[in-house]
């Protein structure tokens, strides 16, 4: 393995591990579940894709082949979908949010629609 390739592998692995750590810091530090889903969806996707790219460069085309590409595509497909599912769960069920809890969208919350009329 040539020297520049080793440096590239190290750079990708370090960037990926830092991105995973930043995503988990967001999961711990951000104030409500919507923000945490946002942090996990972006940071974890970037981190795992960078780690897998480092692995692909380290192993080479002959040994890694298309399996690492399949793993990268799988991360790109699944992590945002899981994050979106959880965010939709929060949005539809009026879980506690930070601030005044309002979201400017052109549809009402399902939990508000489901409430019986008062009086």
């Amino acid at each position, binding site marked *: 393995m040539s020297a520049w390739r080793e440096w590239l592998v190290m750079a990708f692995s370090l960037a990926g591990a830092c991105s*995973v*750590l930043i995503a988990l810091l967001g999961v*711990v530090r951000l104030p409500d*579940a919507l923000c945490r889903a946002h942090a*996990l969806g972006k940071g974890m996707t970037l981190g*795992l894709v960078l780690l897998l790219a480092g692995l692909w460069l380290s192993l080479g085309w002959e040994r890694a082949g298309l399996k690492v590409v399949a793993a990268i595509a799988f991360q790109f497909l699944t992590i945002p979908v*899981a994050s979106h599912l959880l965010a939709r769960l*929060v949005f539809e069920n009026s879980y506690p949010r930070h601030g005044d809890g309002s979201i400017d969208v052109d549809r009402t919350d399902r939990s508000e629609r489901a409430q019986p009329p008062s009086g």
Partner: protein
Amino acid sequence: MNEAILHLDFGLLVVATLLGVWRLAVGPTIVDRILAFDAVVLCAVGFTVLLSNYWGSEHFLELILITSSLGFFGTVALAAFLRRTEDRGQSGEGRVRW
């Protein structure tokens, strides 16, 4: 040099996993716990990637695929069951809330 960088990566991922476990234990709502579970499983995937980088082996690629798909399907199943429970709870008076 290469070994030192890889050890640093392992350390960063250990810290990230511990943060995820903390959120899994503390998380005020069930969605936070599902989120933290997903995060911990993805950290395990990252550990597998780093280990196969460390050992220079390509035999763990299937393990990477299987672990990430298990985490994803677990999250989807928990979200689907929770959605059904919350829907049923909304029609009555007392809504289900963990």
